[in-house]
């Protein structure tokens, strides 16, 4: 095993509901991601994927257990951790350029470096020519590129992505997914990518973690042995189908359990 990227030990998150019950969002998570690896988490809705990601990001304290990033424990938000949200997080009052530089600006990166990295990142995500435009003029996909560029410009060693393409249409999703993979192969961050889309998970990652419905545990870890250089044509291969079937087999029951639980709760 190579260098440690993200190490999650005995993690559990519980919270009290207003009704007085204790809900266990995630429990018994004991997993590791090697540095520079791309791992996806899939699971039914309400399984605590986002909670897990928030804890790894240092935005939420776990009830028990710990998270280490490159050997150092996470105690709060941290500049080694870059977060990409599902919702549009671009700031409409700033231009694309200012948005990309915003993280660096907050973290007081020297001005000269800010300019250089902003230029590079805008180039990397393919937003050249849109530097002076305000996000409301851009499409959802382009705004998500801005958010990605902002995160990458902070040069985090770990990239946490919470369903970053979920709000986009199918074609934009596929394109942006391919872009993200290309960028990742260049920058080699450790990536933890949350999605509910099985084929997206397989297409993007080297390993897929399958989470159960509440309490969220990781019930299956599937290595994706597809060539590193892959495009969307891989979905029609036998291997891809095998992987999809296996993940769906573990997920199906949980998805059903979640569905029933949510239906009876409401």
């Amino acid at each position, binding site marked *: 095993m190579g260098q440690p990227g993200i190490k999650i030990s005995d993690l559990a998150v519980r919270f009290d509901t207003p009704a007085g019950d204790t809900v266990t969002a995630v429990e018994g998570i004991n997993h590791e991601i090697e540095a520079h690896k791309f791992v996806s988490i899939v699971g039914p809705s309400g399984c605590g994927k986002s909670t897990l990601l928030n804890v790894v990001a240092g935005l939420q304290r776990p009830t028990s257990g710990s998270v280490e990033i490159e050997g150092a424990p996470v105690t709060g938000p941290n500049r080694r951790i870059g977060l990409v949200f599902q919702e549009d997080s671009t700031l409409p009052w700033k231009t694309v350029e200012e948005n990309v530089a915003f993280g660096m600006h907050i973290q007081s990166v020297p001005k000269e470096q800010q300019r250089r990295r902003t230029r590079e990142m805008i180039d990397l995500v393919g937003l050249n020519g849109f530097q002076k435009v305000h996000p*409301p003029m851009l499409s959802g996909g382009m705004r998500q590129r801005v958010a990605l560029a902002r995160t990458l410009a902070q040069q985090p060693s770990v990239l946490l992505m919470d369903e970053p393409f979920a709000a986009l249409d199918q074609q934009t999703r596929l394109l942006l997914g391919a872009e993200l993979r290309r960028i990742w192969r260049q920058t080699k961050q450790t990536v933890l990518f949350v999605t509910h889309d099985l084929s997206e998970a397989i297409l993007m990652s080297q390993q897929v973690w399958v989470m159960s419905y509440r309490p969220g545990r990781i019930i299956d870890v599937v290595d994706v042995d597809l060539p590193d250089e892959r495009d969307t044509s891989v979905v029609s291969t036998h291997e891809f189908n095998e992987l999809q079937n296996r993940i769906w087999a573990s997920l199906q029951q949980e998805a059903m359990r979640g569905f029933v639980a949510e239906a009876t709760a409401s």
Partner: protein
Amino acid sequence: MTKTTVQAAPGAQRPPNGGSRRIVTPRTRIGRRVPGTGLISTASTLGLLLLAGLVWQLGSIAQWWSVATLPPFTQVRSELLRLLGTGEFWDDTGRTGMEIVLSLVAGTLLGLLAGILFWKMPIVGRILEPYLVSFYAVPLVLFYPVMIVITGITPWSVIILATVMAAIPMALNTWVGLATLRPVYLKLARSLGCTRRQTMLQVALPGAAPYIVAGLRLAAGYALIGAIAMEFTTASAGLGFRIRYLYESFETPTMFAYVLAVLGLSFLLTLLLALAEKRMLKGRNER
């Protein structure tokens, strides 16, 4: 030119305890402005003004109303031109202008701080909101006897009351703007490790800017109304005082010249605010 919609905030953007109807929603512009719209609106404004002046002039000449009630436009205009050369006119205008500017600045700052406080401490907001909202409906000028007792017949009675009137819409709008901020902005601020100051100045307040600017517009209107109305009742100088004085001594043409001056002042104020608004919301309305 452009209109501010005065209406209840849409369902998704209700204030925290759902009550107040006196909130101005930020401007939304559907579609991009067609080039030349500026020209059309300028031309139509001028046209309407011309029409109003014409009706005014003709009506007085044709005796649709008594000339003692509303003298012809030309008479009022020459009276205004005469006034522009007198020191008294500029003293009154200066005083009223000073009162409006002071109360607008103080009211805006006070309202902004109050709005931030209500957001940071929702309990305080919950307790005070009903009073603030009902304050809107109270003609605060009614408190002028109290003000005279406190400050005497000085500009301060005018400034204090106009400040309070300006602060209320500003506080409510700032509060609603902050409370309806998209949660992802605050999450972003946290994940980037923003300090509280950075979160407030670089994320929260700019995010609430459309509401705050709408609040500023209301505040300007209320400061103007407050100042003039207070001058009517308590002051010994100022445009409002002068108008009442001239009314009581039957100097109608001069009185209307002063009324025109007040209209001019409010037009100037609106223009300045529109410029400020354009600057503050730069890039936002390009949607």
